[in-house]
């Protein structure tokens, strides 16, 4: 068992950049614990991490039980066999092919899709397609109305019965602070701006698209984040994919986390820089890559890199984990690289006053070079922003692809962001914002604790409002979604390719709008379904993340 005194002395003798002790214990590194009771956990974290972390960092990814992994592979094997059988029958016209097909006149063109690419789509995805793209017809708040749809041909086509299923508890929308409302101050302000300015803008930012509303928004965002200056864009995805190319180019190095979002990956690829990937949230892997990069330089010419950019996210939406920001910043300062933090999910959701992951760890926003985020999740609007020093934003104003070629934000959306941000900051004169942030934190802790007690395997950090619950087997993906809908709870289930093939999961997104009664109802139903589908896999054996092996030459280089 761990001996706190020993690790404390080792630490004071040899502090390292990422706060990790050189003790070499396989069980106590970076604050992971193996099966310790809760009271001891607190002491170990605060002492052990040498003051870089001002609060306990409890993140855990329980190992997949062996039997479950085997059964999952068997399940996929059976599905693949059946897939081949059905394809064979379709090819020999024994079974009707319900796919849309190419035009007669174009039958001799090169086929647009390769048959094998769509194997997964045709044979596995089609069976459980009704868990996704569920149409709703009310505001996506804590409770939502869904349009009922049925399929008579095994999910190839859907028909709407016309009925509306009312008051489904919504655990799928990214509504962290509950600003998705159809009445209230935000909506009234947006309505006023809509009648004054209209819905569209019809011009790019550098031409006629820069309204006075946009200037107001950018000053407010800069104040909210605590940075010198900020710039807002029309779409969160486009913010990443159009601004990373403006910051780095050929001859630069991008170090990106394994599980980064598609927009970050696309932005990195479009920039033309060399990309190297480090294991998820693994600071040893990142440090090794940084050392090697500076010592060995560019791959063939050995010239030094022009600059190094580290891409991380605040909360990773599929894992529910929070980035180890104090260690990343310590590494960044030691190796003189730049940090790009994508706070799509964490802005508004973490931190005592909702300022994001930087406030959550008690750090200064000046340490992060580029703070990026989106307005879609916590602010109930659309669009993205980048905040940072004045030179950075000035440069982006002139060189960003989005400013030159893409439309700016729509005015009522801008007003919604302004009103909701003022509410969170408390500038509208009420304490509604602060109450919501606290409610979200309470909801998160309560929900996670109850689910763990029930015996489910939950991934991620204790404070993250994104809660992935592991399902593993392909059949359970569809079954979980459908059973929960029968009990009037809407959940999101994800499988391959968004997650590794055996780690399919259901993901709950908590909201400040969820009352305790709604959470209790949801927990009761989840408990029932968990018993019905045998989902309670947890044996309470947590595995430290660093024990996952990472091999020495783990980076993949892409130079387009």
């Amino acid at each position, binding site marked *: 068992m761990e001996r706190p005194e020993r690790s404390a002395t080792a630490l004071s003798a040899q502090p390292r950049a990422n706060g990790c002790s050189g003790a070499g214990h396989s069980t106590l590194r970076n604050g992971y614990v193996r099966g310790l009771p809760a009271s001891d956990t607190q002491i170990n974290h605060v002492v052990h991490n040498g003051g870089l972390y001002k609060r306990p960092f409890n993140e855990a990814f329980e190992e997949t039980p062996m039997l479950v992994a085997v059964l999952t592979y068997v399940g996929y094997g059976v599905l693949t066999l059946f897939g081949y059988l059905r394809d064979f029958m379709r090819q020999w016209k024994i079974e009707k092919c319900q796919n*849309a097909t190419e*035009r007669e006149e174009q039958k*001799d*063109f*090169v086929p*647009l899709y*390769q048959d094998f690419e769509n194997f997964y789509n045709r044979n596995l*995805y089609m069976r459980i397609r009704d868990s996704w*793209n*569920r*149409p*709703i017809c009310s*505001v*996506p708040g804590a409770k*939502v109305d869904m349009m009922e749809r049925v399929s008579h041909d095994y999910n190839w086509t859907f028909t709407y019965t016309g009925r509306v299923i009312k008051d489904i508890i919504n655990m799928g*929308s990214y509504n962290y602070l509950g600003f998705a409302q*159809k009445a209230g101050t935000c*909506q009234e302000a947006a*309505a006023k701006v*809509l*009648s004054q300015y*209209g*819905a*569209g*803008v*019809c011009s790019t930012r550098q*031409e*006629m698209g*820069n*309204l006075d509303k946009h*200037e107001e928004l950018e000053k407010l965002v800069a104040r909210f984040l605590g940075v010198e200056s900020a710039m807002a864009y*029309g*779409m*969160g*995805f*486009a913010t990443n994919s*159009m601004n990373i190319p403006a*910051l780095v180019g050929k001859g630069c190095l991008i170090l990106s986390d394994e599980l980064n979002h598609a*927009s970050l990956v696309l932005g990195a690829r*479009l920039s033309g820089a060399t990309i190297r990937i480090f294991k998820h949230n693994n600071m040893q892997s990142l440090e090794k890559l940084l050392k090697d990069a*500076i*010592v060995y330089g560019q791959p063939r010419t050995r010239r*030094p890199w022009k600059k190094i950019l580290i891409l991380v996210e605040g909360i990773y939406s599929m894992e529910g984990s929070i980035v180890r920001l104090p260690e990343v910043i310590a590494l960044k300062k030691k190796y003189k*690289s730049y940090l790009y933090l994508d706070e799509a999910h964490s802005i508004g959701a973490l931190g005592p006053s909702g300022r994001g992951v930087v406030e959550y760890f008690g750090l200064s926003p000046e340490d992060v070079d*580029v703070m990026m985020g989106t307005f879609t999740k916590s602010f109930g*609007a*659309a669009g993205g922003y980048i905040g940072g020093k004045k*030179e*950075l934003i*000035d*440069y982006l*104003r*002139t060189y960003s692809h989005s*400013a*030159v070629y*893409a*439309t700016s934000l*729509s005015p*009522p959306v801008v007003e919604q962001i302004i009103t909701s941000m003022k509410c969170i900051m408390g500038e509208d004169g009420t304490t509604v914002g602060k109450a919501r942030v606290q409610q979200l934190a309470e909801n998160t802790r309560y929900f996670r604790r109850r689910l763990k007690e029930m015996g489910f395997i939950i991934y991620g950090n204790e404070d993250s409002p994104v809660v992935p619950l592991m399902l593993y087997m392909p059949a359970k993906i569809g079954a979980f979604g459908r059973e929960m809908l029968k009990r009037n709870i809407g959940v*999101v289930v994800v499988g391959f390719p968004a997650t590794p093939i055996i780690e399919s999961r259901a993901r709950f997104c908590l909201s400040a709008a969820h009352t305790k009664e709604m959470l209790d109802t949801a927990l009761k139903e989840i408990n029932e379904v968990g018993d019905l589908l045998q989902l309670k896999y947890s044996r309470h054996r947590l595995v430290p993340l660093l024990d996952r092996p990472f091999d020495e030459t783990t980076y993949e280089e892409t130079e387009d």
Partner: protein
Amino acid sequence: VQEKEELIEEWQPEPLVPSVPKDHPALNYNIVSGPPTHTVTVNGKKCINFASFNFLGLLDNEKVKSAAQASLKKYGVGTCGPRGFYGTFDVHLELEERLAEFMRTEEAIIYSYGFATIASAIPAYSKRGDIVFVDEAACFAIQKGLQASRSSIKLFKHNDMADLERLLKEQETEDQKNPRKARVTRRFIVVEGLYMNTGDVCPLPELIKLKYKYKVRIFLEESLSFGVLGERGRGITEHFGINIDDIDLISANMENSLASIGGFCCGRSFIIDHQRLSGQGYCFSASLPPLLAAAAIEALNIMEDNPDIFQTLRAKCERIHKALQG
């Protein structure tokens, strides 16, 4: 190890961004107060607006605004989720149906940002190893889509069909040398209906002939020509009287004539359905706010009910062209 420490100490990166001179022309934007309609107040001065893409004047149309208000009261502002996870609203489905009906195709798909539409559509079909023939004057969004797709790009001179035919013939001779590879290499031509960079119209009938002769698929980008060309505003296919099924994919954005935000692609279900799982800007991004979708539906209603606005627009264009050319 000592050497490594020294190297790490010595290395100095470039500054993250180069500094921008204070008098850079693009640094200080013009501030527009109030709605950017036909008369606009720029930096405090009242001007006539010849800079916005508000072709049909629907930006401050009262009916469009009231439809958007009704939607705002019902749905709030944001959708809080991508299309796959409770972000599909009935307004989105309605807008897709209306657009498909208006353009007389089988299906349409909506994106939440105009730039992302064509930039996500091209990489969904064209991958590494495929060949794309694109006009030199293609707009920036197309260029980004092509870069993301990693296919081999062949540029032909602007609106020059002879040049394009030459490239296609060269490709044909290459194919004969390696028929196995040619059988799996997809080929596309990407053109715009009305070019943003030059203001010309592309010669679509000749392109259709080349399509069937050399077996290449056509992707047509109609951001500027949707709602402008054609008798009822259906774009360049109506302008030239071409069967819309001959074009594999039409992509347009709703930020010009429809005075909303977002974009759409329309075509046959065989082609469009693929984007619902592999269009990056569709799967990984939040859906269009419902009030903007409702505004687009109302704008579409106005376009269908008043087909004479297109004649008015064309007459005005001809007048200005004649006056400027002398």
